[in-house]
């Protein structure tokens, strides 16, 4: 039988390598484009992450879905290459390019071998700078998006998200979905796509992270090739979103055995002096793993769900505290009571010293584990720049977590968790529950 010495465990806690061991260089290309680079020459390939701030929020009025559809068409041909020839060329180089539009950013995630980097980068440049937007490809991608929209309209998670966004943000772009509607997508023209391309993919809003087998000089030349011919400026960014949420319950009837619950209210900004205290508080209330209060009370102790979590959502122009779970229809009311009690309890009573220490050790210890491979690190580098974080952030971030005190958590929890303001969207056939608006 094995006995565990708790004292030894406590000593081990102190030995956690709380620093992420990456050396980030800021480089500027001959053409004046900056990027963050981590050189890692062990494996002969590199990962490149390019983000354009704005993304789907830059859809022109009445053209919802244009940026999304345009992004879907970037890999559908350029110059002499139609969609099939482009894919064949990319595959013969064993490079991969991912193009993804979200509300807030349009991202390009590329991965290419050292041995044929120049050819791969040439293809990537074509896709980004001179996409063909061939009519045939437009109709093919339009049909795919319409099919996806049809499926989303019958997906309870998607219905919950749409309902919540609409209630929270109304007519602001955050209040609608990046895929658009069947009507808006059906009406999009090639000119709309060209306009969406000009609006989103411009050099005044680009952030780049690169990791792998590439030198600063090579990366500089690459940046000028890929980005140098994009327009200098794009569309203006959107204004701050209104906060239209008020406390209550919205039920969307849907014939399914398990209800989806999405709940939340206004959150805390990323640059608030108490942001890190809020970050730690959220870890305790509903953070990842099976250790959070919500998971303990709703899943472990009562078996009401397979999963529950809470999140600080920081978009560029809005901030939310959000939670999500799903539970069998007959027990929705019980789940909701537990969630509300937990929301109120942390706001009134704060957290315990043990909870605070455990959350801090988890958050500081898990941070280095995120730096896991070239692609993930490149994404972190681009994301940090877009959020306006300093280049030494990786080295100082854990100190900010460690500096959070009991008093900080108590203060911020009382401020950001507001049970009376909680708006709950339920999609399903919940029993014993009245919608309050």
């Amino acid at each position: 039988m094995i006995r565990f010495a708790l004292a030894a465990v406590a000593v081990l806690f102190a030995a956690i390598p709380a620093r992420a061991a990456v050396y980030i260089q800021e480089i500027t290309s001959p053409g004046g484009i900056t990027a963050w680079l981590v050189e890692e020459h062990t494996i002969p390939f590199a990962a490149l992450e390019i983000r354009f701030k704005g993304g789907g929020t830059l859809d022109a009025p009445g053209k919802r879905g244009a940026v999304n559809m345009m992004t879907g068409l970037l890999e559908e041909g350029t110059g002499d290459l139609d969609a099939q020839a482009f894919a064949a060329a990319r595959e013969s180089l064993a490079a991969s390019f991912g193009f993804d539009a979200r509300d807030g950013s349009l991202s390009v995630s590329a991965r290419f071998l050292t041995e044929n980097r120049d050819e791969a980068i040439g293809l990537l440049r074509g896709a980004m700078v001179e996409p063909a937007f061939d009519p045939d490809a437009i109709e093919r991608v339009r049909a795919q998006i319409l099919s996806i929209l049809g499926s989303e309209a019958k997906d309870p998670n998607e219905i919950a998200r749409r309902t919540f966004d609409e209630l929270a943000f109304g007519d602001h772009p955050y209040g609608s979905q990046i895929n658009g509607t069947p009507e808006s997508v059906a009406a999009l023209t090639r000119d709309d796509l060209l306009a969406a391309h000009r609006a989103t993919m411009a050099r005044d809003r680009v952030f780049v992270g690169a990791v792998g087998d590439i030198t600063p000089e090579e990366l500089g030349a690459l940046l000028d090739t890929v980005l140098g011919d994009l327009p200098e400026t794009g569309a203006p960014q959107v204004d701050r979103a209104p906060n239209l949420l008020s406390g209550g319950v919205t039920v969307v009837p849907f014939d399914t055995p398990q209800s989806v619950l999405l709940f939340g209210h206004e959150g805390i900004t990323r640059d608030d002096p108490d942001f890190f205290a809020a970050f730690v508080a959220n870890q305790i209330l509903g953070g990842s793993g099976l250790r959070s209060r919500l998971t303990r009370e709703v899943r472990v102790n009562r078996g009401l769900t397979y999963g529950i979590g809470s999140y600080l959502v920081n978009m560029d122009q809005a901030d939310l505290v959000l939670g999500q779970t799903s539970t069998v229809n007959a027990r929705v009311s019980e789940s909701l009571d537990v969630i509300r009690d937990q929301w109120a309890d942390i706001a009134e009573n704060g957290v315990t010293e043990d909870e605070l220490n455990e959350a801090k050790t988890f958050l500081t210890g898990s941070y280095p584990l995120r730096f896991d491979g070239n692609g993930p690190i490149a994404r972190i580098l681009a994301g940090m720049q877009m959020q306006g974080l300093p280049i030494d952030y990786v080295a100082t971030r854990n100190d900010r977590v460690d500096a959070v005190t009991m008093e900080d958590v108590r203060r911020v929890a009382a401020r950001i968790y507001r049970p009376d303001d909680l708006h709950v969207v339920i999609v399903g056939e919940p029993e014993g529950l009245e919608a309050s608006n």
Partner: protein
Amino acid sequence: MLRRLGLAGLASLSIAVPGKAAEITDFILDNGLEVVVLEDHRAPVVVQMLWYRVGAADEPPGQSGIAHYLEHLLFKGTDTVDSGEFQALVAANGGSDNAFTAQDYTGYFQRVAADRLDLMMQFEADRMTNLKVDPAEALTERDVVLEERNQRTETEPGALFNEQRQAAQYIAHPYGIPIVGWRHEIERLTLDDAMAFYDTHYAPNNAILIVAGDVEPDEVRQLAEIHYGPIPANPVIGPRDRVDEPPHLAERRVMFSDPRVAQPYVVRTYLVPERDPGAQDDAAALRLLSEVLGGSSATSVLGQSLEFKDKSAVYTSAFYSGTSLDDTTFGFVVVPAEGRSLADAEADLDRVLTEFIETGVDPVQLERIKMRIRANQIYAEDDISALARRYGAALTSGLTVADVQAWPDILQSVTGDQIVAAAERFLRDEVSVTGWFMGEGDQEVTQ
């Protein structure tokens, strides 16, 4: 440092220098525990994975879901460790952990800073043999499992459709039973059932320990001897005997309809061989067949024909995973374009298959696919956890480390003629299940 086994196959490539990450060492402890060490010294991180050679397909009749339910209960404490304590320890050390159950295996893992390996092994070894669960907690956890089934299956018509198709694909073999279990059987599972399953299957001579990351093989061996070494082998564990599938003599059809379905589609699967130790040629041909027919929309035979040329489908795909203990499936998906029926989609699929067998494989396409497979070996070294999972799945499916290392070369050796021959030999109507996934009213349109 001396290179140990290295990644076989890389040396013979026409492209690229072999990567320097991911060196592999394997050995077996006296009690039968097989240990595989994958080295990656780029970051001070380690993953411990303990894989048991037991999965849903090894369950007693009428107790579907017991392997998965037991996986949940492994987090509920031992003689000396409280429920949730191991997870708390992992979290307090900044790590992440989880577990997974498949038809052929059950696995547990932690990802932590490399100097935490000792502690992780201590707790993982403990729950290999000292599990002790409070009966009330076991009942609550069964509710969690039912909610998991609700979330992943009952609310997902596509998942319900897969269950029905899979049940039709296997006449006798347990792969026809869902991993999570049938609802009515989950509802009746007991802690005693789970403990009996645990006592029968959880032992060092039925497990594979994979440690991947910033570690030295000697250090891993030493720690494994300390923590897993003292656990005795279970003499009851023998070969994994499962029910044999009888000959399939009739093609089967599954007509699934659910009002929540917005986009109808056709899925057809065929019962085909899996990768066998020392005999992976058929599986390699099938793997390449799936790439040629439905690997990527813009360059595969199905995509080019149906999505690009005819515009009769919005999406097509072919799939095959050869890592399986017993016979597995090869499948196709065709999502018809607006205005096309499922009967049309099925006819399109049949026509493209017939044409393909007549025309054969485009050698340029085949070379592109092989180039991608070669490059994926390089990319794979960047994700040591994924590499560890690949070894774990292979070794619990009857393959050896040598088989895993030989696989890339075998894939490179497959010819276009062999791919066509595999299609003719294995894609036969009488071993197939064709499923129609329909919303309300789709049936009338398609008949």
